């Protein structure tokens, strides 16, 4: 995902701001990382360049 996605996304549960943490990046494309809700603390994974913003109970182990 590109960093400018941060302008529009929010926590799917309480709609609060997310904080981005990057573990792997490739030429402006965030490949692995996390999105953490600044309000409820829920952590959403970024895997293979794709943010997974499913509510946690729908996510299970969402990686391929």
């Amino acid at each position, binding site marked *: 995902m590109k960093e400018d996605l941060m302008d529009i996304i929010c926590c799917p549960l309480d709609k609060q701001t997310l904080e981005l943490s990057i573990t792997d990046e490739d030429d402006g494309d965030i490949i692995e990382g996390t999105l953490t809700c600044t309000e409820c603390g829920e952590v959403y994974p970024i895997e293979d*360049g794709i943010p997974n*913003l499913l509510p946690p109970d729908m996510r299970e182990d969402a990686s391929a």
Partner: protein
Amino acid sequence: MSVREEFDEWATRGKDRGMADRHWHTAKHVLARMPVEDGDVVLDLGTGSGYAVRALADRGIERGYGIDGSPEMVHNARSYTESDDVAYLVGDFEYLPFEADSVDHAFSMEAFYYAADPHAALSELARVLQPGGTFYCAVDYYEENVYTHEWQSGIDIEMTLWDRAEYRQAFREAGFYVAEQDTVPDREVEIPPPEDFPIEGFESREEMVERYRTFGTLLTVGVAP
């Protein structure tokens, strides 16, 4: 079975592309009607192969976001493009991870009726759309289109079967204005000669003509106030 499990399996079997090809027959006409401008942010719900946002990006928008509850669908969608103008993410219709008033227009093809609670999905859309933003909701699976009713028996997810009036009413209940409702004919699917019938799902050629050319795809357009 969950949406994730069901459609992850479809995606790994490559069904996303086949669906996209078939749905394109009517989806392209639906997309053509959307009043998008160069600076617009557009959302595609249940994006599947992600073709809709790619088509809109080719026409000219600021950014297209495809959201889907199946990580495998999103994985595929992402692999079909390198464009900076589109992005795909995993998420659910009822828990949209977008800020209020952040989207100019939304589109959905053959996906809306999978929402566990379609009313909640409409409320979420009304929340994320700007005032004046549209939701173009396209479905082949609807009450009047009787030939599609059997789809439910082939899938474990409970599907919403509304008729035309129920779509209008649900949109209004969620706060949308209803700007349009129409059936968009599929003029491209090939319909065999009469002597080939019955074929799977159709007793006669007339039935197949009715299913595709008459009932086609039901489009309901809502406008956020």
